[in-house]
């Protein structure tokens, strides 16, 4: 039998007191990053960006936006206990980045509608689970119309059927034919495996919010027969490659790299989604998703450096569409969902790196998810007149 007195002399000092633990959790992302990487506080620097203006520079500029798919919380990423899951972001990308610690999403926390909001600069209210276009013009429409760019210059690579309408709105004076081409790699794979007996089913899950349901496609999505003409990729080669990847996001990244090589779009949007396996409630799979996404982001940035069309003139944005529920909110179930609308699920981050972006700087003033499109407009020279956000002055 253990008596209380047996504790005497047998307990040693703990790893932290509850007070220390609470204080640690209350630290901001800025503090975490400053401690982990030694990067500077943005407010101590000039607010002006070193971005080079001018028609020539604008014309050549490439922008890639990656949504850090499915949303991840601080305690699994930027907090001290989570940093082991994002070694590539932390040690390779953030030192090259301007990092924004408070990106607030005040919209609906469903992945399709939130991504649509990121792409329009307006908090969209469309049905998250239907294949419907955004109600407001997308960044792709502004970009193509204002800069008179062809459809080959704006692409979206997205994870599930539900995203097939993300490329363009149905807004009058914009809309059909004015937006981005959309590639759904899993949809392509479904078509590619048609008639075969090979087991590709591990890549065909539509999404994790509604794993049982996949909306019918209807839109401007990329079809199988175009793979050979545009991506210079045979169906057999595509199938063969699919057997070598471990997740849908890896397949998406493969397609994105082919696009960069063959089409070199100036505006490329990649939506990652593996992390959202969290909805199944298995913490280890959620962590695996974060680590994979971290690795894929770094691989993408390395690919940018090796592609002649992109090296030296590309700005990469990485941001989650939103977070996930806090452990402390009784209305949720922690990491599993993003349903409560609590601050943890609404507050996330953004990093920008590459051409024209100051390196190794942290900005902790709040910004909105809807600020992305106006910022891209200011950087690339188009006018997102219907977007509700404001350009981020530190990037323009």
């Amino acid at each position: 039998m253990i008596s209380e007195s047996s504790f005497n002399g047998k307990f040693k000092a703990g790893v932290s007191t509850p007070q220390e633990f609470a204080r640690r959790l209350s630290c901001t992302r800025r503090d975490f990053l400053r401690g982990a990487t030694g990067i500077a506080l943005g407010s101590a620097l000039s607010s002006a960006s070193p971005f080079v203006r001018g028609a020539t520079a604008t014309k050549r500029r490439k922008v890639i936006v990656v949504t850090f798919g499915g949303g991840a919380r601080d305690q699994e990423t930027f907090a001290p206990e989570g940093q082991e899951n994002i070694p590539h972001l932390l040690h390779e990308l953030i030192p090259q980045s301007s990092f924004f610690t408070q990106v607030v999403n005040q919209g609906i926390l469903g992945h399709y509608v939130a991504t649509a909001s990121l792409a329009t600069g307006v908090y969209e209210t469309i049905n998250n689970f239907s294949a419907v276009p955004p109600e407001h013009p997308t960044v792709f429409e502004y970009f193509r119309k204002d800069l008179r760019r062809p459809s080959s210059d704006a692409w979206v690579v997205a994870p599930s059927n539900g995203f097939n309408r993300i490329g363009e709105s149905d807004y009058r004076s914009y809309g059909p034919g004015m937006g981005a081409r959309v590639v759904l790699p899993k949809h392509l794979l479904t078509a590619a495996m048609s008639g075969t007996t090979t087991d590709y089913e591990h890549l065909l899950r539509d999404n994790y919010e509604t794993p049982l349901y996949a909306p019918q496609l209807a839109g401007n999505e990329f079809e199988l027969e175009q793979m050979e003409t545009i991506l210079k990729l045979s169906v057999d080669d595509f199938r063969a490659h699919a057997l070598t990847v471990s997740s849908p996001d890896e397949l998406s990244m493969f397609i994105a790299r082919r696009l960069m090589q063959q089409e070199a779009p100036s505006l490329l949007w990649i939506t990652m989604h593996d992390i959202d396996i969290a909805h199944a409630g298995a913490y280890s799979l959620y962590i695996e998703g974060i680590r994979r996404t971290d690795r894929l982001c770094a691989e993408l940035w390395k690919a940018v450096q090796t592609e002649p069309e992109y090296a030296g003139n590309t700005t990469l944005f990485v941001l989650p569409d939103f977070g996930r529920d806090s452990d402390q909110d009784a209305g949720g179930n922690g990491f599993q969902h993003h349903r409560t609308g609590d601050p943890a699920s609404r507050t996330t981050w953004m990093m920008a790196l590459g051409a024209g972006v100051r390196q190794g700087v942290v900005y902790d003033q709040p910004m909105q998810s809807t600020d992305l499109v106006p910022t891209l407009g200011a950087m690339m020279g188009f006018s997102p007149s219907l977007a509700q956000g404001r350009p981020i002055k530190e990037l323009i």
Partner: protein
Amino acid sequence: MLPRDLKAEQFAGYPPQARNLVVAHLDALQQLPLSFLPSLLREVIDYDFKFPAERNAIDIELANLSSLSPAQASDWFQAFSQFSLSPALEHFDWVNQPAQFVEQLSAYLWTTHQLDGFRKAALVYGDRLHSVVPPDAIPVRRLGIAVIGQGVTTYDAQLFRNLRPHGAYFAHVKPDNGLQLLLNAVAARAKAHPVPYGHWYIDGGQQADHDPSLTCVSYQALEPVRAALLRKIQADLQRPGMGPEELRTHLARLVPADLGMDEAGDAVLSRFQIKLLTEASGTQIFSTTFAQWAAREALRRAQSLTLLVRFAPRQRQKPMNELLSNSQGNVELDLTGSLVDADMGAYYNWLNQQRLQVADQSAFLVWFEGHSQALVIGPSIPRGTESTTAADLGELIALAAT
């Protein structure tokens, strides 16, 4: 229709006890705003199949509402009265389908950016209700136990990371006969403090022999029910017009008999188990998710006094479509992943236990099954500490109870 128009006969479709309850409090319900009342009715309509703790909570809430004067009711629900609702919601049959109404209300609040305000109003209401109704005393200190890592032979990473700041870590536990000692301890508590649905044993795999005084739920025992559910889902998905909302609505209407459960059994427990599978995400396919969610719901709904949760290995991640089609094949297990899941699940079990009354007196124990690592949390246990004491699981339970 609005609440002020409610009539007793409109509740004819409710089960007997629920109907009687509503009719007895009809005057109070007529004073409530539409943004609030269906949420209450969603609970009341299932009154006949709820745990005693839930019934008690409903009784208390209705009694409080009936005690309010019109002026007081107006004050209590002023915030809820401010929300604008759509005509479609006002015309919805929220009396007979309150759960579906609440789903649509939630979507509407998100769309109209009223959700944050609603959330705040709900929290204020909950706090106010708790402040006027003192919690009942509980007969024994609440105890939670999590057994994690079944089948794992070695694991080098740190366990119990989230729980360590709150209790004492033991690195020299004597694992012999550990599960039996734990089952004996919870059975002893159940016999000493017999409370209906008060003492639980949840197993993420096949349940071990246990005392009948324990309320037991296991993933293995529900396998036929899970298979029947997946077949129903697959069939539903083939029907025209079936979308995610429609599917969820359909699942919410399922009763135990729809999935082949014995109608002569414990109706309250059967309904509980059905809801674990139809209202949650992942419980149908991952045993670790099932165990964690079942524990959460046992704590939230039954307010268990004793809860022993044994996590078992879940199947290795396979494609969702394959899993949901229940196709045959060798089921591979992910032992290490399951340990990581369960380690987090144990933390969530403790968090959910701490949300219940008299939390400062509750105790918790988590043990790496078959191994020498455990952690104990209790009112007398120094926090954030480590012990080199060699102890068996029976001794650790006794320690937690001090």
